[in-house]
C-alpha cells in the first residue's frame, strides 16, 4: 500500500510514473511531489472506509491507479484493529515488559 516514484519509474517508465504519481498525490491530499520522497506515500489510511476526507470516487480512482484491491485493504485494516484491541504483545520488543503491572491504571 505504498507508492514510490522511483519504483514506478522502474516498473512503468518516467512518463507513466509522473502521470500516476501526480494524480494520486492530488486526489489523496498528499502534497505535490510527496511520492518522490524517501518513503513514498502511504495509501492505507487514505483508502480506508473510515476516512471521510477523501470521497468515494477519488478513493476508487486512487486504488485503480495504484493497483490496490480496496476490499483486501479493508480486511487488513480490520484485522489490525482487532489485534490492537486485544493488546498483542510485541515480538519486536517495542512494548516494555513492565506494562500492565501498575495497579493505578484503568
Amino acid at each position: 500500500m505504498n507508492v514510490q516514484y522511483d519504483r514506478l519509474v522502474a516498473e512503468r517508465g518516467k512518463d507513466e510514473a509522473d502521470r500516476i504519481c501526480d494524480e494520486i498525490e492530488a486526489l489523496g491530499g498528499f502534497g505535490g511531489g510527496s511520492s518522490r520522497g524517501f518513503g513514498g506515500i502511504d495509501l492505507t489510511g487514505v483508502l480506508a472506509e473510515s476516512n471521510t476526507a477523501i470521497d468515494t470516487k477519488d478513493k476508487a480512482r486512487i486504488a485503480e491507479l495504484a493497483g490496490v484491491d480496496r476490499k483486501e485493504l479493508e480486511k487488513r485494516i480490520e484485522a489490525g484493529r482487532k489485534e490492537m484491541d486485544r493488546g498483542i504483545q510485541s515480538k519486536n520488543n517495542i512494548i516494555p515488559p513492565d506494562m500492565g503491572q501498575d495497579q493505578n491504571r484503568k
Partner: protein
Amino acid sequence: MAGTTPNWRSTALVVYRALLWIQLALAGAGARITLHTDGTPDATANPNAFHVGHSKDGWKCRLKASYIKHKADESAAPLVSIVDEIDMGIAGALLAVTDLDVVKNLLSGIGTYSTASGYKQVTVGNIAITYQSIAAIWPLYEASGYFGVFNIYSTFNQSGIEFDVGRTKMGEMPVDFMGHTISTRADADQVGNYWKTIA
C-alpha cells in the same frame, strides 16, 4: 449548586521509551502513518522505514509557534496576534556514530553516501537538500497495546553530526530534525501531526 470534580488525568503520562523512525511514507488527507500492532511502522505501507537506533536520553518532541503581536498605543495588551513561525521538531542524541547508514540520513544538503568492497563513506560537499518523513513512536501508559506518535511530514537534520572520540566518554551525535511545510497540502495539515491510537 454542585462543584466540579477535578480530573487529574494521571494516566496520560509519557513514561516509556520512544523509537525514532525515519524514511517513512507520507500519509494523505485525513490519514496517519500506518502502524503495525506492535507500534512499529507497517512494513507494507512503509517499506523504507528505518530505525535510527539508541538515543542517549530519549527524544524531545517540539511543537511551538512564535507570534507577531500587533498593538495600539492606547492599550497595554496586544490587539491581535498572528502566527509568525511554526517550529516543529524532534531532537536527541544518537549513539550509532559509526553506522554510516544512519549518518547518511543526517547530512542532507552536504553528505553523499557510497559503498563498495572494503568501505562505506560519506563525502562532503554542497548538494541539494532532501527531506523525509519521520516519527517518534512510544507505547501509551494509559492503555496497553496503544501508541503515541509524533510525526513530521517533511524534515531534515539541521544539526549535522558532531561527536567525541575517546576512551572515557562514549561518542554521541546530537540531532535536531526541523519540520518544513508541504504547502500543497490542506492548510491545517502541512507540517505534521501528534496523535495516539485509541480503541
